């Protein structure tokens, strides 16, 4: 599968190291995806990386990706300019079980850039709000300057049908929001643990602690869903680069029910 050229339509700066890119197929084709899926983005001449789709699946074009610069390829993609071309393969991977969550409470727990693959879930829940019980978004970041989608967070906070908890590890002066890790928001968040689906994405260590806190609150293990974002190369189950125990994250993941990956969650990158 070769990358298809997409044009960069818009670049929005989210934080000092993260930007959201809007991409559209250069040949005018359409594009569809499900919340939780990712694309392989190719910076021509540099390399290819898996990046989740962070936009609205109901309005998939242009395709939004929120990229944090951590190495050569992600930095090249993060710094593209409108009008430039990026190669795209995808969409790949499993989706968040938004249909299975209908009639239940939904609690979304995101850490850092982990909010990007969960934003499509929020768009979905808000588009079909009447199908769900209570919805809570619990989001943790390093500092207030590292919060993604700030304007949207503020809008979501203003809604009566959505609980939004935001906390940072290290505040700056003037921050009057919560301070502490995202797990501290779980005990008091408004959801019924017996009848809720929890969707979690963030650094693996944060996901481990989050699972423990959700279990403590009484959420059954099979109602906890995680996105595991191990490194990838081919994204089509050929190279073995993303192998995680018996799973190829690119094919069977990145979205897994917790019991499927529980024994592996403490395993270091392979």
């Amino acid at each position, binding site marked *: 599968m070769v990358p298809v050229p997409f044009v960069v339509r818009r670049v929005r700066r989210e934080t000092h190291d993260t930007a959201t890119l809007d991409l559209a197929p250069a040949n005018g084709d359409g594009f569809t995806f499900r919340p939780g899926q990712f694309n392989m983005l190719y910076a021509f001449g540099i390399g290819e990386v898996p990046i989740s789709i962070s936009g609205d699946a109901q309005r998939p074009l242009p395709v939004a990706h929120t990229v944090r610069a951590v190495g050569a390829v992600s930095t090249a993609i993060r710094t593209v300019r409108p009008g430039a071309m990026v190669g795209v393969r995808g969409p790949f991977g499993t989706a968040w079980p938004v249909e299975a969550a209908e009639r239940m409470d939904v609690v979304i727990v995101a*850490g850092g850039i982990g909010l990007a693959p969960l934003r499509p879930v929020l768009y979905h829940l808000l588009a079909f709000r009447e199908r769900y019980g209570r919805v809570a978004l619990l989001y943790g970041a390093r500092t207030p300057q*590292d919060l993604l989608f700030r304007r949207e967070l503020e809008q979501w906070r203003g809604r009566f049908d959505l609980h939004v908890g935001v906390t940072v590890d290290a505040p700056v002066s003037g921050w009057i929001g919560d*301070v502490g*890790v995202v797990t501290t928001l779980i005990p*008091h968040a408004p959801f019924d643990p017996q009848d809720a689906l929890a969707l979690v*994405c963030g650094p*693996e260590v944060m996901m481990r602690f989050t699972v423990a806190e959700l279990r403590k609150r009484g959420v059954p293990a099979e109602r906890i869903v995680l996105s595991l974002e191990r490194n990838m190369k081919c994204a089509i189950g050929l190279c073995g680069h993303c192998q995680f125990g018996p799973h190829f994250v690119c094919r069977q993941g990145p979205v897994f029910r917790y019991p499927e990956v529980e024994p592996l969650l403490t395993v270091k990158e392979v």
Partner: protein
Amino acid sequence: MKEIEELLAEQPFFKGMDPRWIAFFAGCAGNVRFDAGEYIFREGGEANRFLLIRHGRVALETHVPQRGPVTIYTIGKNDVVGWSWLFPPYRWTFDARALELVRAIGFDAACVRKKCEEDPALGYVLLMRLVPVISSRLQATRLQLLDVYGTARGPRAGASA
């Protein structure tokens, strides 16, 4: 207005506790309120009470030279504020400041300590409730120290986030 015993029984901290013990604690408790910005206690001050928050948020702060007060942690509804009152030297190790109007149940530390000394079973009941709070706060602090969201300025620990 609700009796203090009723208010205590509704608090998760006292959930399922024998009413006999709740009555003991109620004997040392009263309603308190703090305006936004008001200090509930100051670092180094005498730890002569503890609080259970009923409404509002509290910042635990420490003073860092050249940076001024830095918030380490925020707590809210149903959380316990403070345990330095439990053991000598009975001094607060942080500042606690109300971030908004705070309504809480305040416990007189000397009164609670006296009752616990007189009846160690009560002391045990209290510790069994307080230790999980301390333990989960320690866990959270560890995670906070790990800087798991690691940006370009820090290590990148874990998945894509």
